[in-house]
């Protein structure tokens, strides 16, 4: 199912000349990235291409060695992660990070009523909880949820902060094909409600399901950008990422 975009073309995030090295390895190398409001973008690339480092730079977990990040017309390069969340930028981590010892309801108590979400409620969270079947698991300790439900709970925690841009780092890792499709449907519906989403994903089934526009990363740089058809027919992308000769 091809997804439709609700983007109005206004830039919500602009990263310019971003660079980050770890020791002698340049994980992100003079990278430029622009996201339009309401866009749903997939970020793909082989292991070590710099996808997770780029996410770390956008969410503030890493400080860039050079470059700037502008979010909603504000330079957020020097802001701490919590300050970026309060401005509407939230991330779901690659390895699931939820409060395992606490119940689902307690997880949501922590995520809810954060400084941002107390200001406005758009009902997105309750819609997400019921769509993903988490609304009946309030008293279950989060660590006892199935793998997919743990991943979904983390997305819901991020949604509780009322983000304008959601970063999803491999949201379907370890999921069955059915769960992957459900997650893809969910992400598409989230985007249709106006939320800008940037997804890193290895699962090409997921990427094919949701992709509007795909950015391919290679050696810390943007290798190419384009529609699903353009990317899949690009011989060089097939060689570096899909492993074809």
């Amino acid at each position: 199912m091809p997804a439709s975009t609700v983007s109005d073309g206004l830039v919500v995030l602009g990263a310019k000349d971003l660079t980050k090295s770890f020791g002698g390895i340049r994980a992100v190398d003079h990278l430029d990235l622009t996201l339009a409001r309401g866009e749903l973008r997939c970020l793909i690339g082989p292991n070590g291409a710099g996808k997770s480092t780029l996410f770390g730079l956008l969410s503030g977990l890493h400080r860039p060695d050079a470059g700037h990040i502008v979010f909603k017309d504000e330079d957020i390069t020097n802001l701490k992660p919590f300050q970026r969340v309060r401005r509407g930028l939230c991330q779901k981590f690659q390895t699931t990070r939820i409060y395992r010892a606490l119940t689902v309801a307690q997880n949501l108590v922590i995520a809810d009523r954060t400084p941002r979400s107390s200001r406005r409620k758009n009902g997105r969270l309750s819609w997400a909880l019921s769509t993903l079947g988490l609304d009946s698991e309030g008293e279950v300790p989060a660590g006892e949820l199935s793998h997919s439900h743990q991943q979904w709970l983390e997305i819901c925690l991020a949604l509780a902060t009322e983000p304008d841009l959601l970063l999803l780092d491999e949201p379907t890792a370890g999921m069955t094909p059915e769960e992957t499709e459900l997650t893809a449907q969910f992400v598409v519906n989230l985007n249709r409600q106006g939320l800008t989403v940037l997804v890193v994903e290895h699962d090409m089934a997921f990427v094919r399901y949701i992709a509007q526009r795909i950015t391919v990363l290679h050696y810390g740089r943007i290798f190419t950008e384009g529609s699903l058809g353009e990317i899949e027919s690009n011989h060089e992308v097939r060689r570096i990422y899909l492993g074809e000769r």
Partner: protein
Amino acid sequence: MAREYTGFWRVLNGPQEIGRGPVFWCLFAFVALGLLGYPFFGSVFALSNLANFCLYIPMGLGLALLWGYNGVLSFGQGAFFAIAGYVYGIIAGNLLDIPGGTLLAAVGGIAASAAIAAAFGYFVFYGQVSNWIIPLLLLVLSLILETFMAQTAGYQWRVGSVLLGGYNGMTNVPSLEIGSANFGGASIAFYYLVVALMLITYLGLRLLVNSHYGHVVVGIRDDVERTRMLGYNVALIQIQVFVVAAALAGLSGILYVSWGNYINPSSMGLLAATLPVIWTAVGGRSSLLAVLLSTVTLRWLADTLAVRGGEYAFLVMGILLLVTMLFFPAGIVVTLARRWLHQKSMYRDLKQNGAP
């Protein structure tokens, strides 16, 4: 679905504490009434001893909040206890003739502990120092303070009219006085003050840990990065919790000097730094009730053993800590309570669903 933890009763009876429900609160009321009625039949000696055991409860509960609920172990509670005690002694000794002087001294003592904790916390938490280094830094702080205070003998070490006293300690510290009431160690007034402060601290911290703020505190313990990524200023919250724990240790310190009119540098020494950790670990750091019970029990046990002579008390405390770490990592009271709650729920399920 996110439950709003706002109603007073709902927050007080919230999920971050093992003692909940009507049976617990009946027992709680029974014990509280027993403590209030104890002066009518207990001897002055017994009252004074019980007050001494209970005055350590705010320090224990503060460490439970800091370590059990926020995940930061501290070997510095003894230091904050002693800082408040010394500052109280200095201010109260200089304001002997002023009405309300001891009350001002109490506020000053607690403020001193809180201020030092805030300064220490600022560097440690904003610097994102690893959780396992913090207790070591605090132990070093305690030992430096002990070493410093131990060499303050002689008349040159005085603040106003109060001598610091070196290793022999500060003597003749006046007891707290509020109006005409004197809270000396052997007085019924002191006993009631300690019981009141113990109950207020316990109930106050119960409200805190079960509030929305308390959930965030627990969230920081369980996953710092996730909590940051939900928009919370984690370092600021950690400092706040650290300051509350230090202030509570300071409160215990002030009660201690008011009780014994004396404080010396060993109150910030190695043993004093370790004991609160043992009380908290043995009861179970994730429950305020468990720490309250273990603090009183272990204080009583140490006192009873000390009366019999020798250094058995320290040996027994050490063995207790080892046994707890090996067999009850969550703490003795917490483990037993969980087991009981588990059996109760199994029994209830069995009654509802019949035998499997």
